[in-house]
């Protein structure tokens, strides 16, 4: 579980995060939603330690980030998996080398063990016969799945995804969402997903946090989203006619 307490982050005069409290539960897909510029990505990068927090704290299962030494933080990073918006696969490495990279860098496993674990992860995300292809030679959906395989190869306790289905067609986006949810439950990972895809919210939102202007103004489950009276959230999630119909149908049940 990750517990965030009153975190603030500014860049110069720009106050981006204005005291966010949140809890991300184990074995659940925890979503952060909000408009562009609401602070979602900065919030995620603060959790990952890419940005230092100005104020507040992040508690990773009893380990406060404010009390960690640099070495402790590096050890914690070995427990984190991250799926970037653009996949961030290493261009010069093949699919197999990308997935096995953390194992080769940080473990003393034999080549056979590394190959087994790599193939297990690639099979888990349904990638076949692509081990020796380079990222530029595979589709966007496959790149996302390889990125997920790389993120889980070290058996992370925490998985972070920054808009994992951006740029994908609706069907592939759904496949990616389902895959992340399955992996979260299967390996009991604390998963935090940053998204503004409303299909994801209604499909895999075990716990949803809604950010507006650097503040969290609402939280609840995907079912709560359907029945919310929060006008700002409703305007954001149900902005299209299709989602308005979905909401009306859910409310009339």
């Amino acid at each position: 579980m990750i517990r965030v307490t009153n975190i603030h982050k500014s860049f110069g005069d720009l106050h981006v995060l204005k005291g966010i409290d949140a809890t991300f539960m184990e074995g659940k897909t925890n979503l952060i939603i909000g408009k562009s510029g609401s602070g979602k990505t900065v919030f995620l990068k603060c959790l990952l330690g890419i940005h230092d927090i100005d104020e507040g704290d992040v508690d990773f299962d009893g380990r406060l980030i404010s009390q960690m030494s640099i070495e402790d933080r590096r050890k914690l990073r070995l427990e984190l998996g991250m799926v970037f918006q653009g996949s961030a696969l290493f261009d010069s490495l093949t699919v197999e080398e990308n997935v096995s990279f953390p194992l080769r860098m940080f473990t003393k496993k034999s080549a056979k063990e590394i190959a087994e674990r790599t193939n297990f992860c690639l099979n888990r995300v349904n990638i076949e016969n692509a081990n020796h292809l380079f990222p530029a030679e595979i589709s966007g959906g496959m790149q996302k799945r390889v990125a997920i395989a790389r993120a889980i190869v070290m058996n992370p306790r925490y998985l972070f995804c920054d808009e994992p289905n951006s740029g994908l067609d609706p069907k592939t986006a759904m496949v990616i969402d389902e895959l992340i949810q399955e992996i979260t439950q299967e390996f009991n990972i604390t998963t935090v997903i940053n998204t503004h895809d409303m299909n994801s919210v209604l499909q895999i939102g075990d716990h949803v946090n809604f950010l507006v202007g650097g503040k969290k103004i609402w939280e609840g489950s995907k079912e709560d989203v359907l029945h919310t009276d929060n006008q700002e959230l409703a305007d954001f999630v149900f902005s299209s006619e299709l989602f308005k119909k979905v909401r009306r149908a859910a409310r009339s049940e």
Partner: protein
Amino acid sequence: MFIKRILEDIGRYFILMKLVFRRPDNYRMYWDAFVRDLYNLGVKSLGLVAIISLFVGAVVTIQTALNLENPIIPKYYIAIATRESIILEFSPTMISLILAGKVGSNIASTLGTMRVSEQIEALEVMGVKSASFLIMPKIAACVIFNPILIIISMFLGIVGGYIFGTSTGMITGTDFIKGLQMDYTPFYIAYALIKTVVFAFVITSISAYYGFFVKGGAIEVGENSTKAVVASSLVLILTNYLLTQLLLG
């Protein structure tokens, strides 16, 4: 404003260098990266260096021959002038300037692209010392391989001078060989190689600095690659003057 920006750049450059020279997480992975960079930055420059050296050696010989066309001056002076020009300046400095363009833009654009496509952040999230892992092997590869390139350049420059000088009838083979052996100072080779090692460090580290800190997208990657080549060329010329003053002055 301009001075402030230069001072900021210098400060950030030294902070980056402190991050680059840290103990590797995994020597095997660094070795693999080093071998890859040795091939990409060094071996792949061999063709360019060979062609340029051969023809510049020829041009230096022909121009020297034309300028020394005087019955009082022995022909073997052409070979002495060619040898000194190539060993002292052309191979270590001019070839390094050419490499600043080729290798420098390669390093800056590779790292810049990795930055804007979040590959460097991906390394950092994994816990990899990104600056060290990405830059140290490149610096090591160039510092080790550039002297080899420069020795090859010296050899081919002189061979080019010999071939074109003798084939055009400007100097005989005997005079050329005699000139090459006359008044030879072995320290000049050491001077050239010392310069090359320093230039290799300047080119790779400055280009890496401009690539590593790119912000934005494709346009900024291109802009920073240009800045990397300009800055490393300027620092190289300045360092050339300082080293010449120190070692030969």
